């Protein structure tokens, strides 16, 4: 009786998992294995069937000027967006968490960029950045400054995109910090107030440490975002000028759909996957289990 019941529970479990497991295997697990496999083969327009070439794809990729640029750009992009948008998220949360006139409206304005699609955000900022018609240039000419083509200049294009992404993301982290701030016991703050601690000491000794789990969580999300979102590049720069705004996923996108070099696309995908696994490992081993998913 007990054995047959356990058997039944096993069968039911697998039956219930089946619908999600099929799609999980098809679009997450199988493609990862396939990519790893393909990365050892030459597979492009010149080959009928994939030819085994060992690590040559990786070697060629490392020698590829464009890949190196996309890799370095992506690191700068990560450095430019992650700490700033997380820190800004914290600041914004502290600002709107105070009961002042208009704080609800301010919260709305900080959060709406999170809700709109990245593509439309890209178009909105395109209007800002474009020379001649763009609003930033109109302002500059108003003050008598010269024309500035932010997206057309390889020394400013990445910064321009970073600014836009910070604008889009900060509100997202603000929400996490708001939730955390509201969970801080009020008597803790009051006690320190009675002890005569200044606001700054209060923040440094009580609030900031208590926000640490949120900070780590936000850092992980922001890091993943820095590698997985390239919609804005398709709209604003196509990776240009001169690959100055090319990022890894955009490189994969172009290798796949423009140059049809599947071996290279596979190798580059592996690089990004390894980065993701490293981030996950840091999160898993380096942080409190409480903020982990399990």
């Amino acid at each position, binding site marked *: 009786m007990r054995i047959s019941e356990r058997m039944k529970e096993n069968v039911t479990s697998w039956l219930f998992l089946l619908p999600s497991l099929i799609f999980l295997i098809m679009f*997450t697990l199988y493609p990862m294995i*396939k990519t790893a496999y393909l990365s050892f083969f030459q597979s492009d327009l010149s080959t009928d069937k994939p030819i085994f070439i060992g690590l040559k794809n990786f070697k060629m990729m490392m020698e590829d000027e464009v890949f190196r640029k996309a890799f370095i750009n992506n690191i700068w992009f990560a450095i430019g967006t992650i700490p700033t948008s997380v820190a800004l998220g914290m600041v914004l949360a502290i600002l709107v968490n*105070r009961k002042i006139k208009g704080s609800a409206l*301010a919260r709305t304005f900080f959060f709406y960029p*999170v809700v709109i699609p990245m593509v439309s955000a890209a178009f909105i900022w395109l209007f800002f950045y474009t020379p001649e018609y763009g609003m930033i240039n109109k302002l500059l000419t108003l003050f008598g400054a010269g024309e500035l083509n932010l997206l057309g200049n390889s020394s400013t294009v990445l910064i321009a995109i970073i600014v836009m992404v910070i604008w889009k993301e900060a509100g997202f982290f603000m*929400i996490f910090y708001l939730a955390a701030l509201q969970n801080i016991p009020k008597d803790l703050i009051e006690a320190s107030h009675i002890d005569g601690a200044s606001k700054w000491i209060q923040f440094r000794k009580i609030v900031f440490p208590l926000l640490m789990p949120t900070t780590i969580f936000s850092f992980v999300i922001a890091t993943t975002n820095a590698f997985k979102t390239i919609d804005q590049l398709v709209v604003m720069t196509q990776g240009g000028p001169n690959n100055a705004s090319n990022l890894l996923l955009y490189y994969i996108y172009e290798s796949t759909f423009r140059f049809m070099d599947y071996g290279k696309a596979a190798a580059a995908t592996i690089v990004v996957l390894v980065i993701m696994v490293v981030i996950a490992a840091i999160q898993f081993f380096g942080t409190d289990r409480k903020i982990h998913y399990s």
Partner: protein
Amino acid sequence: MNRVINLSTHVLAILWALPLFGIIYMAFKDTKVEGFSVTIHNFIEAWNSAPFAQYYLNTFIIVIGILAVQLVTITLAAYVFARMNFVGQGIVFLLYLVQIMIPIELLIFPNSSTIAQLGIYDTKLAIMIPYFISAFGIFLLRQTFKGIPYELEEAAKMEGCNRIQTIWHVYVPLAKPTYIAFGLISVSGQWSNFLWPLIITDSDSNRPLTVGLAMFAKASDSGAQWGVVAAATLFVILPLLLAFFLFQRQFISSFMHSGIK
């Protein structure tokens, strides 16, 4: 000091709002006359020069289709992980965790070839199918299910409910806030999806709004057309913004909910 902080809050809020007001201004501005006069001409022209009604319909079908399937798959999987014991549990659980680690967006290259092999390139199904499971949703819901008293399940069993009936009558109603949170995040996320549908579609009858907007803007690539492109951008974001402004509390608490594990 407090005054300075209050002021900086307001200044930052205005800075954040500027892009929105900027695009509204551009969409309503009559480019043919000097200075500013309000016109809806840009909207009419945008609507008439690309099949936006079709794009809206496509986006609706895609977003609803994904959510409908997700609700079924995440409910069943979340229940198993919350309440059942089976052989291989540990490994399967890890497999689902992989999807949290590796976002599906990074797998555009292998997944697009899978779609081609399945012979469903340029269909709405191709846009939807990778998203039919959401590991994020499963873990979110599992957490809620675990918090539901086990006595309720036992009571349902006593009444003669089988597993499916128990899930339907006990777990689903009690997890309503989680479903709403997940639904809002899923819908707004899929409404915004761009790169995958861009890759996997090739005709207006399947393109969602985001891709339609990009195609339309590419076709009208000159400064004089900008009011029209601004109007088209508003087509894409308006439903989301309206929903957000109307159900703001719900939106914000949903996103908050998703962050605390």
